[in-house]
């Protein structure tokens, strides 16, 4: 048996297929096709959670996605435990394990419920007012405690082992919502041949036809018609039907994000299925058929377990075959709750009474209820619910006051009316309009190519909805370019119809200040809180919302927004449209990070770039560092070496013998064409026209504002061909910068730009033995100092493959950079390595490269400069062509601030204690004894231990630095003040003799 509250012959599930599950450790049996909610209700379980702030016992409010209360944790294993799952959405599978949240030690006895008794302390704005002082206590004390006490579920602390998938899709017509209107629109559009996608968040299609027992379409029961229509749509080649798929976001130009829950409903999903699939759909036309959501009545203690929306009780009965109680009361302000009472009565459930706030309602459902012998009370209100862990009674009073009467019940069905679901319409930037007659916001001004149909458009009644949806489906297909329709419109034979209802607080919501009549169940916002917000001066609904947090929980106020708005409007004495509706934002329901991230995690998070020589470095045991997307060999430790020892050894080896360094990541751009030199003149500060082919020059690139943007050595291979190198990280932006000027400012220049970073592997061979290592392998290039001086380039062959051989140095030693086609990179490296072994060469990594260049005072753009440094600041004025009439940045360099005295200038820094290595980024002051906050005059940009110098070395930007040579400055650190002397930037071989050494 699948629960004592399962009604034989009611509902659509097959009793034969049972599924066992557990909730809070207790085992239960449900039926395949149940939700966790319907299965628990079938077993008589209403108490499933504790509320966010007051820890009040909570049950199910709804049977769908709008559920604010019944949030549980569903656990497959330690890594796969999903918090805040709506029990009304989670489908049951055999072996499902769920547990309640936000309670300790147990759901029935929760210590945190003391907040409920102490609730006068916790009124609206409480946090803003109370935890203001002392300021420091917020972070260390208040916030952690509040977060621990108030809250929802706990996220898993292990990596998510599931995988997620994503797809792009295009269609003519995207229909969102698979109820009667959505199905009709999809059919109408599909029959024209248009490409259609129909999506619905539920496991099955039919929308409100799942509970509307009175609907008949095309001669069949409404739900059966829906299933037949879906089968027909699924069989069409031009239609994609997606169930369990929520449209969560509506973005620009009909771009809609949907998330499909692929395997959360399966017992053993297996590894070939993703957990969820993100659909990013671009639709020519969108049809919104998102229906409407029933509102609750706002009265005292309306949150007791067992009190729920009337439509929810109808779904549980008519679809799942579950009675939500044995003795049920009804409290309503519109007709739809009568249908729920009638269905339950016919199924054998006692209806204690219907309490209707309206004075003289008439209609067929009221007559039918009376005919079934149900007690019907007009003009009365439920002013209070009894019971705590479960509702036990409802107290009824004439709405204008009078004698009270308490009626025992074990459930109360409520209906204050229906709110059109305009969330997606609003997300599309459409403007809603308030219909004063029906008291609801409906789509007004459209911003995109979409149309709303059915209940979400404020259209009442099945027949009118289907007429509207059919016409909209045909028109959407036609507007998207399809032919005329060939289908026929579904015919409605019988339907239910209701509208109206009430907004705001019912008489049972106050004015007594101790009453808790909930507006927003998930954030524990009561009618009193909203009134208080207005009394405390909030005038705009946006302020009321933030002050009370009404509608700000994960359910985004699906049931609470309209009530909250109406109470605020009433308290302000203003009409509703003047108070305004808060903006709906994506996501419609919570979306997992997994779905958004999809495959882009782990190694697929970002591309990894590896050089041609990477495998060799890996085999040598190199330690790598990330430089942008590149993996670069950082240092090559030998057995027993730590990083410092390895770097010291590498640095000494380069200066005493030779070192090999993989410089392949260097950005490289070929600038080619008759106007190549003119282009270079404009993009770099240096003069290029007179640079002879075969020679190189260190170039500086500025932005128009005069600040250093990039640098690098440029070789002129031919009158019309430059081989430009850039910083490793700067290559893409330098290319973009060059292209921008070439295409838009200097289009008259006949120049082609080609990125050649990946085409050439670069092997730097540096040190006194470098020429001896390279020379035996080179053909066709005279390696003598006369033929190949420092800063020159030749084309020839090395190891039989083409090379661009640069004589250049980033170490201050005699040096070469051997460019070879990347495919030969590793082979040439290995040949050079073998040759190097004869001369005691070592491989060195990026850390040693940094130390060696710092010993020589060579800057690194982005480390020693930060986007506010001019060539003059960096001591590089010599690289700016003084006779040039134009280059990018020429005007910026003469801006008043850039020529002012006292600018920060790059200088060397030597600690008084040579063993002390400064921290990069540390601030520099002139007087360490001054009061805090001290005046900072600069900071350390580069700092290393230099084994070659036998001391620490550093570079720093210091105000007026070049006028401070020999001055003592101070670097205050947590462990004391470090004294430094301002020096020149070159720490090793000041005369530069070793370049030819």
């Amino acid at each position, binding site marked *: 048996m699948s629960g004592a509250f399962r009604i034989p012959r009611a509902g659509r599930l097959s009793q034969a297929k049972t599924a066992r599950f557990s909730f809070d450790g207790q085992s239960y049996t449900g039926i395949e096709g149940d939700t966790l909610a319907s299965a628990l209700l079938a077993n008589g379980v209403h108490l499933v959670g504790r509320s966010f702030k007051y820890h009040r016992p909570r049950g199910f409010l709804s049977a769908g996605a709008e559920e604010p209360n019944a949030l549980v944790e569903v656990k497959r294993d330690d890594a796969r435990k999903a918090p805040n799952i709506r029990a009304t959405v989670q489908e049951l599978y055999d072996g499902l394990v769920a547990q309640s949240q936000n309670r300790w030690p147990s759901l029935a006895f929760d210590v945190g419920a003391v907040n409920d008794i102490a609730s006068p302390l916790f009124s609206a704005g409480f946090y803003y007012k109370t935890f203001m002082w002392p300021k420091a206590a917020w972070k260390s004390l208040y916030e952690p405690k509040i977060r621990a006490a108030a809250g929802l579920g706990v996220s898993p602390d292990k990596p998510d082992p599931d995988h997620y998938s994503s797809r792009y899709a295009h269609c003519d017509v995207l229909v969102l919502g698979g109820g009667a209107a959505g199905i009709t629109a999809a059919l109408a559009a599909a029959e024209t041949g248009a490409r259609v996608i129909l999506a619905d968040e539920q496991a099955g299609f039919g929308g409100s036809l799942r509970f509307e027992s009175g609907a008949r379409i095309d001669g069949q029961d409404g739900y059966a018609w829906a299933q037949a229509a879906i089968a027909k749509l699924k069989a069409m080649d031009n239609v994609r039907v997606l169930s369990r798929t929520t449209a969560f976001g509506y*973005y*620009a130009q009909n771009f809609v994000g949907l998330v499909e829950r692929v395997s959360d409903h399966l017992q053993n999903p297996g590894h070939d299925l993703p957990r969820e699939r993100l659909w990013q759909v*671009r639709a020519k036309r969108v049809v919104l058929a998102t229906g409407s959501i029933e509102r609750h009545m706002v009265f005292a203690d309306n949150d007791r377990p067992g009190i729920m929306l009337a439509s929810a009780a109808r779904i549980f009965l008519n679809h799942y075959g579950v009675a939500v109680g044995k003795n049920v009361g009804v409290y309503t302000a519109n007709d739809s709750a009568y249908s729920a009472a009638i269905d339950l009565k016919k199924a054998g459930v006692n209806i204690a009474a219907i309490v209707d706030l309206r004075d003289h309602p008439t209609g067929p459902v009221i007559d039918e209820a009376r005919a079934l012998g149900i007690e019907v009370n007009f003009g009365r209100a439920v002013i209070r619910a009894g019971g705590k862990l479960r509702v036990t009674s409802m107290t009824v009073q004439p709405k204008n006051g009078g004698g009270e009467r308490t009626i025992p019940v074990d459930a109360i069905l409520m209906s204050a009316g229906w709110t059109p679901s305009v969330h997606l319409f609003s997300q599309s930037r459409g403007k809603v309009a308030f219909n004063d007659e029906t008291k609801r916001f409906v789509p007004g001004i459209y911003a995109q190519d979409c149309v709303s149909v059915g209940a979400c458009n404020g259209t009442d009644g099945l027949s009118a909805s289907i007429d509207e949806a059919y016409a909209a489906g045909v028109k959407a297909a036609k507007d998207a370019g399809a032919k005329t329709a060939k289908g026929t419109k579904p015919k409605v034979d019988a339907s239910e119809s209701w509208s109206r209802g009430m907004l705001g607080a019912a008489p049972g919501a106050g004015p007594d200040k101790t009453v808790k009549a909930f507006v927003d169940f998930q954030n524990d916002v009561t009618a009193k809180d909203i009134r208080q917000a207005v009394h405390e001066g909030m005038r705009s609904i946006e302020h009321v919302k933030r002050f009370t947090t009404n509608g700000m929980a994960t359910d985004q106020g699906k049931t609470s927004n309209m009530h909250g708005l109406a109470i605020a409007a009433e308290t302000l004495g203003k009409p509703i449209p003047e108070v305004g509706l808060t903006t709906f934002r994506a996501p419609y329901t919570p979306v997992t990070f997994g779905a958004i991230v999809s495959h882009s995690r782990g190694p697929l998070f970002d591309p990894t770039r590896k050089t041609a020589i990477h495998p060799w470095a890996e085999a040598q045991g190199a330690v790598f560092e990330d430089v942008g997307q590149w993996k670069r060999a950082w240092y090559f430790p030998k057995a027993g070496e730590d990083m410092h020892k390895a770097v010291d050894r590498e640095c000494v080896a380069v200066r005493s013998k030779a070192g090999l360094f993989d410089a392949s990541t260097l950005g490289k751009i070929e600038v080619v064409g008759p106007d190549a030199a003119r282009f270079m003149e404009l993009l770099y500060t240096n003069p290029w026209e007179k640079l002879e082919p075969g020679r190189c020059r260190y170039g500086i690139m500025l932005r128009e504002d005069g600040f250093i943007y990039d640098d690098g050595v440029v070789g002129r291979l031919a009158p019309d061909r430059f081989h430009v190198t850039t910083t490793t990280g700067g290559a893409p932006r330098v290319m973009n910068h060059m292209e921008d000027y070439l295409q838009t400012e200097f289009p008259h220049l006949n120049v082609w730009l080609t990125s050649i970073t990946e085409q050439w592997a670069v092997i730097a061979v540096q040190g006194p033995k470098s020429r001896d290592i390279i020379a035996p392998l080179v053909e066709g290039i005279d390696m003598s100092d006369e033929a190949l001086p420092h800063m020159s380039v030749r084309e020839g062959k090395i190891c039989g493959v083409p090379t661009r051989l640069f004589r250049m140095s980033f170490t201050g030693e005699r040096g070469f950079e051997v460019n070879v086609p990347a495919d030969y990179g590793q082979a040439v490296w290995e040949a050079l390595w073998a040759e190097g072994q004869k001369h005691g060469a070592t491989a060195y990594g990026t850390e040693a490269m940094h130390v060696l260049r710092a010993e020589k005072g060579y800057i690194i753009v982005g480390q020693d400069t930060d986007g506010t440094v001019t060539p003059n600041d960096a001591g590089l004025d010599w690289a700016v062509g003084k006779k040039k009439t134009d280059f990018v940045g020429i005007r910026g360099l003469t801006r008043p601030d850039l020529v002012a005295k006292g600018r920060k200038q790059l200088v060397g820094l030597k600690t008084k204690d040579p063993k002390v290595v400064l921290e990069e980024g540390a601030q520099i002051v002139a007087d360490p004894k001054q009061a805090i906050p001290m005046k900072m005059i600069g900071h350390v940009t580069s700092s290393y231990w230099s084994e070659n110098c036998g001391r620490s070395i550093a570079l720093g930007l210091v105000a007026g630095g070049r006028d401070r040579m020999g001055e003592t400055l101070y670097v205050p650190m947590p462990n004391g003040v470090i004294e430094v002397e301002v020096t020149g930037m070159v720490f090793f071989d000041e005369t530069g003799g070793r370049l030819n050494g």
Partner: protein
Amino acid sequence: MLLIRCPYCEEERPELEFRNAGEAHIARSANMAGESDDDFEKFFFIRSNPKGIIYERWRHIHGCARFFNAVRDTVTDKFVMTYKAGEPKPSKLPKNSNEMASK
């Protein structure tokens, strides 16, 4: 995600393929070095930042790699038109078929 028509490819392509490149029709002076401080300030720092129609540059960086100009409404994010770099600022804008219209 926006759809942007590249005037060189003559196709609407998703925003992912493009990169915004700031306001359009701000010409670099032929006599850059001779610009006054005020003129340089206008050229380099001052941007219109309008609510409504903006003329801006985009690059089809993951497509044809060309820079081009676009007219966009900053309120709705809708593109009114795109045109090639170097073409004059359009004096009249085409009526946007997607304009906000009452249902």
